[in-house]
């Protein structure tokens, strides 16, 4: 039996790739959320009739109660920065070039945190508990990136 790791013969290592196109479907509920971002620069959440939790981004089933959700709530553009992290190491899927900052924002009226970029601020100046507000892009397409980032309010 050969000894593991011993290269007494030429060992082949081949580069390869898998490149497959995918199409994420937002569904009726997700689509409404994205369309409101695109068309009216509004952030919508959805409320559970059983436990009153407000989810953003909105979903169709309450994860706690399993109730069907259809009560839409218009949330403002402001909220609290609960946590953040600065990215220095570039990775292929990143939409921005490092360094950039991810943050979790709890919008006023929502019970969930929304992950997004934090902009117009140096990392040293950020604090958990800061007030932040959404900044929208000029050209919007119906994507979460229609919000450009959240900036200190």
């Amino acid at each position: 039996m050969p000894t593991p790791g011993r290269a007494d013969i030429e060992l082949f290592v081949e580069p390869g790739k898998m490149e497959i196109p995918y199409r994420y479907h937002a569904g009726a509920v997700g689509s409404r959320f994205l369309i409101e971002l695109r068309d009216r620069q509004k952030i919508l959440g959805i409320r559970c009739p059983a436990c009153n939790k407000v989810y953003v981004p909105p979903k169709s089933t309450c994860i706690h109660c399993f109730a069907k959700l259809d009560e839409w709530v218009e949330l403002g553009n402001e909220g609290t920065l609960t946590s953040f992290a600065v990215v220095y190491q570039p990775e292929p899927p990143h939409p921005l070039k490092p360094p950039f900052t991810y943050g979790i924002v709890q919008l006023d009226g929502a019970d969930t945190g929304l992950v997004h970029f934090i902009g117009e601020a140096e990392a040293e100046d950020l604090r958990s508990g800061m007030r932040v507000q959404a900044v929208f892009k000029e050209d919007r397409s119906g994507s979460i990136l229609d919000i450009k980032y959240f900036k200190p309010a």
Partner: protein
Amino acid sequence: MSQRVAIVGCGQTYHKARRPDVNETELVNEAVRTALEDAQISLRDIDSVFTANMDGFEGVHLSDCWMCDGSGAYMKPGLKATTGGTTGASIFFAGVDYVASGLFDTELVIGYQKHEEGNVTAGLLGGQEQAWVKGMMQGAIGIFANIAQGYMMESGAREEHAAMLRLKADRNALRNPYAQLRLNLESVEQVLQSPYLIPPLRLLDMCPNSSGAAAVVLASEDRAKRISGKPVWVADTVSQHMGWSPVSSSMMGFGAPGERRLESTHTVCARKLYRNHGITNPRKQIDVFEMYEPSIWGEMKWYEDFLFCEKGEGWKLVEQGVTEIDGELPVNPSGGVVSTNPIGATALLRVLEAALQVRGDAGEHQVPRDVKTAIATGWGGINWTTMVLLSSTL
């Protein structure tokens, strides 16, 4: 001593080519709510959730995590399976074993796929072994083109036989409101107009890619008797996997003369299952057979592999109508995989459809007889067969 396990609830979506109105979680949720309603229980009564999906085909990694709100799995134990064509069966087996072990009493088992979000052939080809087959393999289509060619050469079957079998599938699908392809095919000539994918395999000979989900509720004997007036008992499960070569050519429907001819995994499973349950004549002793057939040519050849007839005679059963919905052994009264194929759910749908037959609840596609025993099979690349035996009595 292991527990007896029964299916006490079934739910599926109306399978479609496209469901732009839902994201994948919502699709799963539809099947889950239907199954819970069918069992007349709520999510609170479920103690574990088992899910199954081929994520790679849709570009979602660890899709079970994403499905958490729709599947009801939040804060509940469970497992996920990703095993190719057998995915829906693998998760069913896992579910059955956990209830049989006594660890869980009432379980939700879910299979799903939202094909329009990805590309199956790409997923299959991308998953192929790099050096040996990547350039050559044509995915499932290639495999079944080989099976079709090999089977015709060895048995004398003709393309007309495949067309006749496709018409049966469509007739049955027209009676099944959940099936995706309900084409109203009129004649053998019409089927033979269907364009070739890889000759001699035609478009209509192959299964579609559906977006859909299926869910079943499993329960241990005590719970099953309390929940359901018509529990469908899981009498046995058998699985066999034969791995890679040298069975490649026998899998493809012909045996190379110099090669050792090995029995297909279907036959190995069937022999074991039949022997363990005193089935010596499956055509007489089984009431319904829901077969996992990605291609109509697969169904024809596999009549032989599942021991309905001698080798080389599968096409004769087609001519004699043995497997029609009112025939001696109805095969795929649901319309089968050629009518509906959400891969992560498909093998589970065979079990679900077989269970509906045992309950007498298949509506218009119910076989016209008292169904006491039913078999549901699963198949996946490469060389993996699953069989489930369902019974109306303990």
